[in-house]
C-alpha cells in the first residue's frame, strides 16, 4: 500500500513537472527574453520526465509480458483491456496532434505576409534614402571644410576648426594625423571630450581616394553620420597629410523614426529567419505533449485494467480453489457496483457449495467405509468370491479366490473370464461353469467341480447367484467357491482310520488263536501221521503260521495308522535323525547311494523323534523300492523355504521310476501301492506324521524320478 502510494506520488510529480515544463516552454517561445537561458534546461527536464514515464511504462509492459508468459490469473484480461484502452485513446490524440501542428504551422506562416514584407522593405529603403541624402550633405560639408583647411597651414588649422564647426551642421570635427591619431577636435557639446576613431578600413579607403561615410547609432536610438575625408597638403609645408572626421547628428525625430524602422525590420527578419525553427520548436513541444498524453493514457489503461481485473482475478483464483475442493476462500466485497454484486453472489454460491460438498463428502466417506468394510469382510472369507458382469469381465475377486486359483489380482480383475484359462488351463471347468451360468437365468445354483493346478487337483464347490441389472449395470453373477480338497481328504482320512481301526480290532483278535491252533495241530499230529500226510500237514501249518504273521504285520500297520499316539515333541535338529536313518538303511542295502545336502546350521524343529524316524524310514524305504534293477541314488536335502523363512523344506528325490500318474492323485491315501508286498500305508503314515507336526506334503515327478517335498515349521522359542 505504502509502495503503491509512493509510486503514484512519483508519477504525479513527474507528470506535474512535465506539464509545468511544457507550459513554460510554450511561454518562453512566445518571446520572454529573461527565460532564454533556462529554455534548454526546461527542455532537458521535459525529456527527462518523459524518459521517466517511458521507463515506468516499459517496466509495466515487461511486467505484463512476464505475467503473460507465466499465464497468471487475470493477466490476459488485463492485457486485452490495456490494449483496448491504449488503442481507444491513441487515435484521437494523434488526430489532435496532426491538426494542431497543421494549424500551428499555418498560423506561423500567416505572420509572414508578402505585403508586410514589402511594406517593411519599402520603409527600410525610404529610411536608407533619407539617411543617404543626409550622408551626402554631411559628406559635402566635410569635403568643403577639408578643402578650406587645405589652404591653411597645419598649425593654424586647429584655430579654424571651431569656426567651421559653427558654420556647418556637424556636431563634432576632428583633425586626424596620417598616423591615425586625433590631433585636434571641436565639438558642440563642450562636455564631450572624447571622440572615437573611425574603423581601420575607413582610413584605408580614404587613403585610396574613397570617401568614408557611415550611419551609426549613438545614445540608444539616436543616429549620427560619421564622415572621414582627406585634407590634401596643398601648401606642402609638411610631407604628411591629415584626415578630417566629421560627425553629424540626425535630427531626433528622424532618428527615432529611422531607428524604429530598423528595429521593426530586424524583428521581422528575425522571425522570418526563425520561421522553420519556430515551427520545429512548437512541433517538438506538441510531440512531447502527445507523448505525455499517450504515456498517461497507457498508465491510466494499466491502472484501470488492474483495478477492474483485480476482483475478476480474485474470482478466478477462488474458482480455481473451488475446483480443487477448497471452499473456504471468501472474496472481500470492495464495491457496490455490478462487480460487487457478482462477488457477493460468488461468496454465497461458494458457501452453498461448501455445505453441499460437505454432505456429499460425508456420503462418499460412508460409501467408502462400507466398501472398505465389504472388502475387509471379503478378504477375511476363506471362500473365494468372484463378480463377473454380462460382458464376461471379472469385476472383483477377493484374496481367497486369488489364492484358490493361484493367480494375482492384476491377472484377472478387469480381465475377461477367459483370461483365467489363458493363465491356467486347469481352470477351464470353472470358467465354463461361470460362462454357462451367466447365460442361464437360474437365480441361485451350486455345483462341485474339479480343477488342476500343476500336479495338484482341487475339488471346488461353486455357488452362484445372479445380480439383477437394476443393482449393477448390465447385471452379472457373483460366484462363491470353496476348496473342498482338504475337507474331502480329511473325510477320507477319517474313514480310512476308522476302517483301519475296525480291521485291526476285528482281524487281530482271531489271529493269535489261529496261529496257536495251527502250531498245536502241527505239534500233535506231525509225528503221528504217515509220511505222505506229514508233509501235507507240515506245509499247511507252515503256510497258516506264515500268513497269520503277514496278517499280523498288516494289522499292526493298520493299527499304527489308525491310532493317534501322544506325541513327545522336543526342540531338536533333523540332520542327525536323517543321517541315522540313512546309516541304518545303508548298512542293509549296500547298493543304494545316498546324496545328502543338509542345511547348515541346521534349524531347530519341534518334533517327536520316534515318529520322525518312522517318517524318514518310510520315505527311504519307499524310494528304495521304486527301483527295478537299476542303481538307485536317493537325494535328501533340507533348505529354508524361499517364500517363508520359518519353513524348512525336506526334499526326497530319487532316480527311480517315479510315481505312476494314476495313483499320484491318491498317493497319500491308505492302500495305494504299486508294490506286491506293500501294505499301502507307508506314505499315508508319512502324511499323517507331517500333518501331526503342522506341516504339509506333496509328491510329484521330476526329470529324474519321484520327488516328495515336505514343509515343516521351524521351532521358535
Amino acid at each position: 500500500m505504502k509502495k503503491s502510494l509512493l509510486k503514484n506520488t512519483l508519477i504525479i510529480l513527474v507528470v506535474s513537472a512535465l506539464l509545468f515544463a511544457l507550459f513554460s516552454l510554450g511561454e518562453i517561445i512566445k518571446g520572454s527574453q529573461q527565460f532564454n537561458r533556462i529554455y534548454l534546461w526546461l527542455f532537458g527536464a521535459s525529456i527527462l520526465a518523459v524518459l521517466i514515464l517511458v521507463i515506468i511504462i516499459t517496466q509495466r509492459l515487461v511486467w505484463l509480458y512476464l505475467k503473460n508468459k507465466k499465464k497468471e490469473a487475470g493477466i490476459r484480461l488485463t492485457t486485452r483491456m490495456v490494449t483496448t484502452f491504449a488503442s481507444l485513446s491513441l487515435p484521437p490524440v494523434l488526430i489532435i496532434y496532426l491538426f494542431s501542428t497543421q494549424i500551428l504551422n499555418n498560423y506561423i506562416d500567416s505572420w509572414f505576409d508578402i505585403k508586410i514584407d514589402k511594406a517593411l522593405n519599402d520603409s527600410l529603403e525610404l529610411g536608407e534614402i533619407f539617411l543617404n541624402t543626409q550622408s551626402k550633405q554631411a559628406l559635402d560639408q566635410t569635403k568643403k571644410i577639408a578643402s578650406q583647411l587645405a589652404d591653411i597651414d597645419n598649425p593654424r588649422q586647429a584655430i579654424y576648426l571651431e569656426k567651421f564647426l559653427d558654420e556647418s551642421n556637424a556636431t563634432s570635427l576632428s583633425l586626424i594625423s596620417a598616423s591615425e591619431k586625433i590631433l585636434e577636435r571641436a565639438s558642440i557639446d563642450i562636455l564631450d571630450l572624447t571622440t572615437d576613431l573611425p574603423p581601420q578600413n575607413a582610413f584605408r579607403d580614404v587613403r585610396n581616394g574613397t570617401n568614408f561615410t557611415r550611419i551609426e547609432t549613438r545614445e540608444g536610438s539616436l543616429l549620427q553620420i560619421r564622415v572621414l575625408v582627406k585634407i590634401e597638403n596643398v601648401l606642402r609645408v609638411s610631407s604628411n597629410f591629415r584626415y578630417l572626421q566629421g560627425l553629424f547628428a540626425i535630427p531626433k525625430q528622424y532618428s527615432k523614426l529611422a531607428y524604429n524602422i530598423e528595429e521593426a525590420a530586424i524583428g521581422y527578419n528575425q522571425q522570418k529567419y526563425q520561421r522553420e525553427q519556430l515551427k520545429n520548436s512548437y512541433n517538438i513541444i506538441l510531440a512531447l505533449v502527445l507523448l505525455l498524453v499517450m504515456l498517461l493514457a497507457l498508465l491510466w489503461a494499466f491502472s484501470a485494467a488492474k483495478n477492474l481485473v483485480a476482483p475478476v482475478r480474485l474470482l478466478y483464483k477462488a474458482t480455481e480453489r473451488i475446483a480443487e475442493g477448497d471452499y473456504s476462500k471468501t472474496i472481500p466485497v470492495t464495491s457496490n457496483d455490478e462487480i460487487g454484486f457478482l462477488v457477493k453472489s460468488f461468496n454465497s454460491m461458494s458457501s452453498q457449495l461448501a455445505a453441499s460438498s460437505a454432505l456429499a463428502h460425508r456420503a462418499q466417506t460412508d460409501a467408502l467405509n462400507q466398501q472398505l468394510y465389504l472388502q475387509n469382510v471379503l478378504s477375511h472369507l476363506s471362500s473365494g468370491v468372484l463378480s463377473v458382469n454380462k460382458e464376461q469381465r471379472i469385476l472383483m475377486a477377493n484374496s481367497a479366490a486369488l489364492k484358490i486359483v493361484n493367480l494375482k489380482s492384476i491377472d484377472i480383475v478387469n480381465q475377461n473370464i477367459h483370461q483365467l484359462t489363458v493363465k491356467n488351463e486347469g481352470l477351464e471347468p470353472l470358467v465354463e461353469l461361470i460362462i454357462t451360468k451367466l447365460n442361464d437365468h437360474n437365480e441361485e445354483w451350486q455345483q462341485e467341480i474339479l480343477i488342476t493346478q500343476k500336479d495338484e487337483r482341487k475339488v471346488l464347490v461353486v455357488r452362484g447367484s445372479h445380480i439383477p441389472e437394476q443393482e449393477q449395470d448390465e447385471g452379472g453373477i457373483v460366484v462363491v467357491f470353496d476348496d473342498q480338497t482338504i475337507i474331502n481328504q480329511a473325510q477320507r482320512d477319517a474313514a480310512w482310520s476308522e476302517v483301519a481301526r475296525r480291521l485291526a480290532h476285528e482281524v487281530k483278535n482271531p489271529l493269535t488263536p489261529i496261529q496257536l491252533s495251527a502250531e498245536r495241530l502241527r505239534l500233535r499230529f506231525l509225528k503221528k501221521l504217515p509220511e505222505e500226510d506229514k508233509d501235507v500237514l507240515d506245509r499247511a501249518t507252515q503256510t497258516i503260521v506264515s500268513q497269520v504273521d503277514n496278517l499280523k504285520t498288516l494289522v499292526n500297520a493298520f493299527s499304527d495308522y489308525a491310532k493317534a499316539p501322544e506325541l513327545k515333541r522336543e526342540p531338536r535338529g533333523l540332520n542327525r535323525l536323517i543321517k541315522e536313518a540313512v546309516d541304518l538303511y545303508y548298512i542293509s542295502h549296500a547298493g543304494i547311494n545316498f546324496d545328502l545336502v543338509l542345511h547348515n546350521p541346521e534349524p531347530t524343529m519341534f518334533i517327536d523323534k520316534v515318529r520322525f524316524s518312522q517318517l524318514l524310514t518310510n520315505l527311504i524305504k519307499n524310494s528304495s523300492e521304486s527301483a527295478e534293477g537299476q542303481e538307485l541314488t536317493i537325494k535328501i536335502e533340507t533348505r529354508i523355504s524361499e517364500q517363508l523363512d520359518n519353513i524348512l523344506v525336506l526334499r526326497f528325490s530319487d532316480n527311480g521310476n517315479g510315481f505312476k500318474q494314476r495313483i499320484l492323485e491318491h498317493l497319500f491315501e491308505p492302500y495305494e501301492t504299486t508294490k506286491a508286498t506293500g501294505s499301502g500305508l507307508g506314505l499315508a503314515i508319512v502324511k499323517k506324521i507331517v500333518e501331526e507336526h503342522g506341516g504339509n506334503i506333496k509328491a510329484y515327478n521330476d526329470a529324474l524320478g519321484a520327488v516328495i517335498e515336505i514343509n515343516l515349521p521351524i521351532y521358535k522359542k
Partner: protein
Amino acid sequence: MNIKLLLTLLFFSTLVVAENHVIFLEISSNETSTVIKPQLDFHTSAQIKEAIDNGIRINIIAKVDLYEPQSLWFNKTLKKQKITLEISYFSLGKHYKIKNLRTDEQIGVNEYPQLWKELEKLMVFEFPNSAITSKSWVKLRIMLDKGALPIAMQLPVLFDSNWDINTPWHEQKVMQ
C-alpha cells in the same frame, strides 16, 4: 531526432571545434598591471553569417583564467575574467557592430570577414601585477553563448556543427 543522427552531429561537431583556435596571447606589462590580448584564428560558417544578416544577435564570450598549475591536484585559479561581445547587423548603416556588453564600447565593421578579426581589439584583459607570480599561467578560450540566442534557435543550434565555433583552451605562461 533519432539517436544515430544525434551521435553523427556530435561527432562532426567535435571535428569543427578543432578549426577555431587561439594562436597566441600577447602579454605586456606596465608598472601596475599586465595586459593580455589574444590573437585568433577564427572562422565561422555561412549559417552564422546568414543569421547575423537576418538580425540575430550573437554573443561571443572570451574567458580568461589566471592560474598556478599544481602537480598533483587541480590548478589553483588566481583570477578570472570574462568579456561578452555582441555581434549584430545594422541594416540602415549597412555594417556590422561589435559591442562590449560590459563597457558598452562598440566598433563598426563594414565587411563580414573583417568582423572576426576586429574581435581581438575588444578582447583586452588586464590583471593587476600583484595577482601574478612567476609560476602564473593564463588560459583563454572563445565560445559562442548559445543561451543568448533566440529560443527557437537554441535547440537546433545545440546539435548543429555549423554553430560550434568554440575554441579549445589556449594555455600560456605569463612570464616567459
